[in-house]
């Protein structure tokens, strides 16, 4: 057989709740109402927090940050599939996951106000801090997954990254490692169609990102990333497989970056308002709300109360954060090493002498 066709795995697309809110009941997962309510609350909190962060940034109270509007369903649907003992490795659009996993909101505000202490991951929470160098967190997830297994845990690791990140060597090397080591790991790609100004189509010539899994010999699946339920089901299946020792999965969630890349960005330079409008129509919030309404979980009165509660929560987080904005550079000498070196102790003295000389209590 001189020309033989070799088998190649197939790639599926999954959606459960469509744009009109119609549910495919054969695929609908049985989520307890209490959890649906908590998911909804976190969704709303994330949405309102994002809006407040934009205002804080415009007022100069925090620095540049990347809004997350539009990514909530993908992040919440996927993180809901994780246990507290599982590891979560984010890039920088996963605040809803941090909120879900119990981070104080003030940490995020503090971080984006330029205070490193905002990224002190709360004790006991198995999350990593935000990661700025694109894709560089992905190999860490392989290490966490293999370490957990080595220690006899049945925990799973999930790593998030964007469509842009999928082009990076760090991502591709990590996927290959995960395949070889059959790591208990879920690769969750937030394909929001843009990497700053570059469209998905120019990021790779592959028709889907999900099919990149074929290069590494494990399953890939594409889901509607604006459909919280589909994101949950795909992740749940992947997590189960990982936990059973059946190796990694790549999930590509199709969603859209409805807002700016970051507050330093001007998308009118590179993308069409019409495209944004079209995706606004598909955005995840109304769809999830409609689903809950149909289930009788939400009512108008409850929602107003929830909005008020969330507003207070955010307001007090801003206050707590601003109260914590006490910078002294001297703190920067801590945590460089477990114990400061001889040289660092000397430099710290230098700084203290300088502060004494200028009469400043601390350097901002």
């Amino acid at each position: 057989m001189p020309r033989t066709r070799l088998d190649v795995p197939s790639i599926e697309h999954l959606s459960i709740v469509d744009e009109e809110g119609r549910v495919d009941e054969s695929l609908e997962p049985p989520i307890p109402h209490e959890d649906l309510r908590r998911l909804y609350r976190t969704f709303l909190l994330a949405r309102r927090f994002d809006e407040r962060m934009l205002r804080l940034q415009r007022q100069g109270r925090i620095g540049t940050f990347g809004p997350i509007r539009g990514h909530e369903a993908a992040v919440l649907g996927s993180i809901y599939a994780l246990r507290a003992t599982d590891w979560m490795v984010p890039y920088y659009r996963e605040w809803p996951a941090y909120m879900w996993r119990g981070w104080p909101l003030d940490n995020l505000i503090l971080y984006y106000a330029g205070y490193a202490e905002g990224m002190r991951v709360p004790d006991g929470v198995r999350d990593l801090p935000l990661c700025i160098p694109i894709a560089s967190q992905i190999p860490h997830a392989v290490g966490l997954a293999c370490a957990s297994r080595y220690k006899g845990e049945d925990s799973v690791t999930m790593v998030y990254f964007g469509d842009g990140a999928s082009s990076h060597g760090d991502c591709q090397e990590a996927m290959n490692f995960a395949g070889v080591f059959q790591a208990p790991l879920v690769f969750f790609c937030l394909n929001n169609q843009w990497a700053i100004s570059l469209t998905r189509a120019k990021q790779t010539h592959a028709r889907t990102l999900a099919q990149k899994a074929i290069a590494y010999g494990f399953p890939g699946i594409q889901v509607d990333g604006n459909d919280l339920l589909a994101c949950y089901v795909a992740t749940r299946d992947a997590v189960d497989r990982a936990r059973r020792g059946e190796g990694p999965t790549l999930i590509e969630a199709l969603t859209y970056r409805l807002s700016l890349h970051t507050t330093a960005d001007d998308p009118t330079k590179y993308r069409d308002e019409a495209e944004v409008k079209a995706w606004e129509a598909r955005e995840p919030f109304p769809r999830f709300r409609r689903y809950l309404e149909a289930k009788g979980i939400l009512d108008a009165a409850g929602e107003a109360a929830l909005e008020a509660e969330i507003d207070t929560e955010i307001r007090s987080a801003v206050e707590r954060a601003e109260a914590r904005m006490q910078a002294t550079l001297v703190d920067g000498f801590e945590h460089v090493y477990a114990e400061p070196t001889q040289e660092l102790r000397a430099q710290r003295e230098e700084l203290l002498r300088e502060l004494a000389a200028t009469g400043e209590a601390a350097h901002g």
Partner: protein
Amino acid sequence: MTEPRKLTMVQAVNLALMQEMERDDDVLVLGEDIGVDGGVFRVTDGLLAKFGEQRVIDTPLAEGAIVGMAIGMAIYGLKPVPEIQFSGFSFQAFHQIENHAARYRARTRGRYHIQMVVRMPYGGGVRALEHHSESEEAYYAHTPGLKIVIPSSPRSARALLVSAIRDPDTVIFFEPKALYHAVKEDVPVAEEAWPIGKARVAREGKDLTLIAYGAMLHRCLEVAERVHAEDGAEVEVVDLLSISPMDTETIAASARKTGRVVVAHEAQRSFGVGAEVVARVVETAFLQLEAPVRRVTAFDIVYPGFARERGWLPGPDRVLRAVRETLAF
């Protein structure tokens, strides 16, 4: 059109790219968001409209491949000018630069060479997160085969980038992002190219030599004026412009004249450019030295976040103290 114009550094760099691309079809730019978006700092604005997609190439997100692809283009004979969006992400391409760009001429005994300028915004002072505020020049400067250039103003940025693009060797071109919009300066419309490897005496003086580059230069000039006004001492300020090759002659001449030297940079102290300056001063002006050469730098700590950046970056006060102590030694 023949009059100089007041330009920001962003505009000056843009001018250099425009003019060099007009002048030479083999010059092209590539990188993340440099096309449609015009670069996240707008440095490449207008290039895509003018030169098209073949010469202004928006690439996927992968610094190693950006620089690697540019190296291939340079082997062919083109003159690529890749951009790394922030110098903090340049280590993703460091192996391509050290393994190849720096070595290709030597490896092939001159059959191929890498005429490439890797541009990147660097340095602090813009209230940014980690990886967006650091100074990486020393990592590059240790590598034979590379040239490291850091302008300090719109005019020097334009004139040195023109030279870098025409230079047959690989140039790592660090653009001090704190200066992108901070100052405007007259930039001649007509071609201007400054030699790479030459420092500039930015202010003459006989009592102490203050060596700096990039955004630090301005803090140092401020200090020099203040010392003149308040202490009556004359500080000579040397603007390195080229970190490698370093202009030892200019440094040595000034150090021999003043006998007192302070060197200042934003990067952390240990194993930095300042150490090399100290070594060269000691090697070339030992007998004239009247005081230890002082380094004024960031501390050897991880970037502490922009809330603490003001103290981390060596500001004029810190330079001033070092200058006064060195004068008094």
